[in-house]
């Protein structure tokens, strides 16, 4: 046998068990050529693959954790939204009942206002008075007792009944200087304050004196 296989001659030479057949247990290995050695997959590739898998698993884990965290964030935000919606609803309900004609009329009356039953118009082009401005001083309809009930207004105080704290909060609005109407529409007041806005220099637009605005 002349080949280039390495043999373990020692092992070969040792006698086997007498009962067993002398089967030769040779360890044979092909010695790779240089080319073959070159062609053999390198450890780096294997490592890359394994690391890649680990990286993917790790990334998946991180993403999953982040998503779960997102779920908690969403839940928290949804709760917040729910509360905010409730806030908005409370305020809208308040506003809607404050806007009701019953409440406005009761407040206006509490502040001493009356409605004018007799409309009159001043035609600016020729100064004619249309309608009869001096009739009754007011109509009772805007007021007496609340004959158009609204159960939602039970216990809601009028502006004149508000506590001093609430009134103080309103005060800045009341004490603010009342701006003079700029288009001269306040000429109905008996002695109109002489202000630059009321000067006759204002141009007439369709018979109505109006400042030119841009």
């Amino acid at each position: 046998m002349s080949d280039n296989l390495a043999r373990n001659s020692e092992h070969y030479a040792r006698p086997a068990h007498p009962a067993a057949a002398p089967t030769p247990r040779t360890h044979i290995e092909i010695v790779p050529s240089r080319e073959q050695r070159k062609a053999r997959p390198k450890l780096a590739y294997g490592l890359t693959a394994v690391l890649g898998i680990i990286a993917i698993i790790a990334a998946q884990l991180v993403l999953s954790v982040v998503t779960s965290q997102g779920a908690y964030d969403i839940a928290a935000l949804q709760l917040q939204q729910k509360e905010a919606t409730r806030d908005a609803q409370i305020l809208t309900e308040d506003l809607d009942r404050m806007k009701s004609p019953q409440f406005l009329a009761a407040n206006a009356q509490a502040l001493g206002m009356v409605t004018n039953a007799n409309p009159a118009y001043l035609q600016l082009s020729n100064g004619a008075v249309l309608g009869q401005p001096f009739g009754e001083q007011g109509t009772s309809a805007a007021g007496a007792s609340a004959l158009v009930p609204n159960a939602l207004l039970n216990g809601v105080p009028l502006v004149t009944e508000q506590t001093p704290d609430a009134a103080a909060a309103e005060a800045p609005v009341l004490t603010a200087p009342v701006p003079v109407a700029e288009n001269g529409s306040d000429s109905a007041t008996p002695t109109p304050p002489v202000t630059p806005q009321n000067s006759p220099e204002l141009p007439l637009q369709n018979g109505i004196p109006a400042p030119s605005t841009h």
Partner: protein
Amino acid sequence: MARTTRSNRARVFSAAVLLCVLLSVFVVRLIDIQVVRADELNAAALDRRSSTDPILGARGDIVDANGVVLAGSVQRYDIFISPKQAVLGSREGIKESDPEIDAKARAVLTAETEALAAPLGMTGASVLAIIDAAIAENPDSDFAYVAKGVDTEMFRAVADVDLAWQYAKSRPARTYPNGAVAGNLVGFVGAEGEAQAGLELGQDSCLAGVNGEEAYETGADYVRLPDTTRVISEAKQGGTLGLTIDSDLQWFVQQALAEQAQATGAAWGTAIVQEVKTGKLLAVADYPSVDPNNVDGTEGDDRGSRAFAASYEPGSTFKALTSATVIDAGQADPLAQVVAPYRIIFPNGADVNDSSSHGDDRLTMTGVMIDSSNTGMSQFGERISDEARYESMKKFGLGRESEVGFPSEDSGDLNGDGPSTWDNQTKYATMFGQGLTTTAIQMASVYQTIANNGVRLPVQLVSGCTQSDGTVVDQPETAGTQVVSPEAARATSDMLEMVYKQGWLADQWNVPGYRVGAKTGTAQMPDGNGGYSKGYLVSIAGYAPADDARYVVSVSLADPVNMNTSAAPAPVFQQIMSQVLKKYRVVPSGAPAPELPANW
């Protein structure tokens, strides 16, 4: 040696058999779980970790012509408790009876119920009573209502008390921010949200929303798992119902009507404002009127709208219709002359008399209208056939429900199927508004027709239903019909202006600066037994400005015991007409009304 081999083989064989059996058991089990019962188990698993929630399909709003919400949907909360948990909690889980523990537990429970009751405006004792009653009935009682329909602020206050045995469930509810303003029209819903009256009922198909359902999975702490939400069925949001009503005007009209109705002791009343050139109802007031927020505060009969649902004999306001019809037929004009005695017995036996005794008056048709003479009007009315008058009434919209289609709307009754069923008295009575019935809405529509040059426009209350996707449905018809010629309408209008100027209420219904056409009515009311009662239904219908009519106002008061004449509605008519003209910035009339002689 051979035995050993055999026993070895047997062992191997039995092991293999055992293995096979085991394996097949596993395989069977696997197939059973993964294939046979897969769906069932999957569903059960999903059920364990998934929840379903309804997606709220909110009931739509009812808004007025300017978008003011008359009926809106809000969230309300039912507060309930677990009586069992309340008792167990206070005893700290100890079930055995022991005087000391009992007393201590009772004290804890009392304190807790007081804490819960305070924000609800209840007493601790009443909550304790609820618990005791529930426990007495069933010691394991896990559910009892404490309060229903509390608002959000109260719900939050209750939640802040933080009791382990108290829960709350939200549910949609209805709110009416303007209370009784248009409550007669809007109607109301029941405790469970079911439509019960008014437009809530009549337009339920527009307003009703349909709840959807969504399912999602939760973790152990009930936080939604991402990407698990799926919609089982979409919710359908209710549509927004738009009305032609102006809520501010509606309030004014209701207030003015209620004031005078109370002052005159009227049983009920209606007031209507209708736009002449569109047929839109701007205000329809009823007295008494329901506050939909507090339905129980109003008698059952007063919860609807009598303007639509009650028909009555209109009386003399009806003479405008008869006049317009006779003039349209060419059989009379405002200057046509008759002699009107206090009483006439007609050839067919009909006996007609006026409301107050007078001699033989030489009246023009205008004079007949001003004096509201039944004998005079009968002589004009008989100039055309009963059939022609009946056809005219139908063209004016009488005897059938208006285009509004209000729930339980009355059609009125033209006394049977027409002249063939009228008796001799009815043939004349129908000329001046007795012997037939109309609703207040129908009478307003008659005046709208006369004011609008004889063109009757469909009565509008609903301007449309805006669905959640933005499309508008249920838009009303707007095509008018020429009922009488423009000339006949104008002539009738001229006479109504003379009634306004020269009638006996001229001072009381005066609206300075405007030309107005109006007519009173004082009709006998049926007593319910086929005869007439002593009460009268007094009414005024009119419009302004008469030279270019824009608004019809019609006011009726039933049985005003303190003032049983048409002077009762006059101040209401005057106030409402003034308010309407002012509100809509109607330019005062220029030229005065043409003068027409009342006598000859």
